[in-house]
């Protein structure tokens, strides 16, 4: 999993996160065991509505700085490997 997320973890960290993930999975199993037939789906855990931002510009990032963080870049754009299949 760390591999998929491209995270470099130490052995200790791997052990710690494996334990935490197992606990999360256990919790999910507990929830799945509940009878939810009479409950309506929740869109969001908080009772909030309409959290808005005003339509005001804020500065964007410096492109060179962003590109320096990308695995590969060309002509100011992110370079990605050959795409298999078509656009969604």
């Amino acid at each position: 999993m760390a591999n998929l997320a491209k995270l470099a973890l130490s052995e200790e960290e791997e052990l710690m996160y494996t334990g935490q993930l197992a606990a999360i999975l256990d919790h999910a199993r507990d929830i799945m065991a509940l009878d939810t037939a009479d409950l309506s789906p929740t869109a969001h855990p908080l009772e909030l509505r309409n959290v808005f931002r005003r339509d005001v510009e804020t500065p964007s990032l410096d492109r060179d700085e962003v590109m320096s963080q990308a695995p590969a870049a060309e002509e100011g754009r992110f370079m990605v490997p050959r795409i298999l299949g078509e656009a969604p």
Partner: protein
Amino acid sequence: MAKPMPSEAANEFIPGWEMVIGLEVHCELKTRTKLFCGCTNSFGHEPNTNICPVCLGLPGSLPVINESAVELAVRIGLSLNCKVDESIFHRKNYFYPDMPKDYQVSQYERAINENGYLELPLSKKMVRIERAHIEEDTGKSTHVGGGGGRIHGADHSLVDYNRAGIPLVEIVSAPDLRSADEAREYVSELRAILVASGASDGKMEEGSLRVDANVSVRRLGSEEFGTRCEIKNLNSLRSLVRAIEYEAQRQVELINSGERVIQQTRHWNEDQGVTTAMRSKEEAYDYRYFPEPDLVPLSPSDEWIAEIQGRIGLLPAARRERMASLFASVSAGSTLDQIVTAVGLGLDDLVVAAVECGADPKLALARATNEVASDIGNLSNLTVANFSDLLMMEFESKLSATQAKTVLSKMLESGSGPQEVAKSLGFEALDASILEGLVDQVISGSPKEWERFSMGEDQLSGFFIGQVMKLSKGRADGKAVTSILRSKRA
């Protein structure tokens, strides 16, 4: 411009068959900033200069929705007679690099606008609008190393995320359209509504408005739908019509040859005039939709909706009525066509203002939908005052119709006023005394014709006008010459 073709006739594209078309129109909203962050929403900037942690999907960043985008989405819903209701956002997951997050935030189960309709202006047909929901636009990929910029055969791709996160509303029609012409009429009218409501600039050429067409065919009289294909890459009304006609023909030929239509997404190739298979159509479960945990539900209050309603300008239907009221009566035909064109192109304000300045409505409408429409990119060069002055000059015969058209074209190019342009082209009307002198000259040179005209042979006026035109090198006004001839005869 949609042709006023009755839908029954248009259905007969192949005798015995009928097209069934539904359209998905993506409309970029005219906000200052993106949907979930403060990066600027504009077209044509250097790649990746309008990006931030939110639209790059960097860890720890959180989206906050732009209030203006919600307002513009509500404007669209109200303009399309939709029910505006509480809605939520979902993540649409897919593997493609045009979204750095690997998902697009969209509305899936509960859209902000549902169950509306749009009336086609010429055929008066009602087209149902299923939904008009909010979503974010994706980045733009360029495929390098293959032929013609296609993915197939490319070595790698380059991605620009300036467009990622631009607010969109996707307007989904019911499969109510029955011909390519109806589809064109629908998109023209929808475009006019989006522009008039202030939600979009409606520029298809810049990608502000993008259309996907779902096309199927069935035997005439059949109630069942055929298997549909979705056509992408329709960048103009012309491509829309061509692609639908090609695709329907292809499907009929397939069925006639005993094969069946496969549900798939197809790409319109403008150069070759064909659609080609891109991929088999995804089902919703392929996208693993789930509620976006970082955004709370939208719930526009009745008060806010009423406020927004009050800010929507005159919509195309009302604009057409306003124009029609300038005329004694408007029946189907050229005047109605011109009114639909003028409103569709946003030229109706100009016509109405010119008429208020005293211009003749018929002339104003004709010049607007022909000369002005053909150079609409230069519209900002034309003031109402200059336009109505020109129309008055033509109406009062200071300029002939041909001269007026030429002067108007030059006015649009240069931004100058009609008197100035007419003068520079030598179109100045001749002074009355000069004109009378020319008439006298012609009369004394043609005594026999003058005698016959004086005896009542009215048809000879054409001869005199022709002679005066010759002498004046085309600058004389025929009507003015006629009245001088009449007064001299009496």
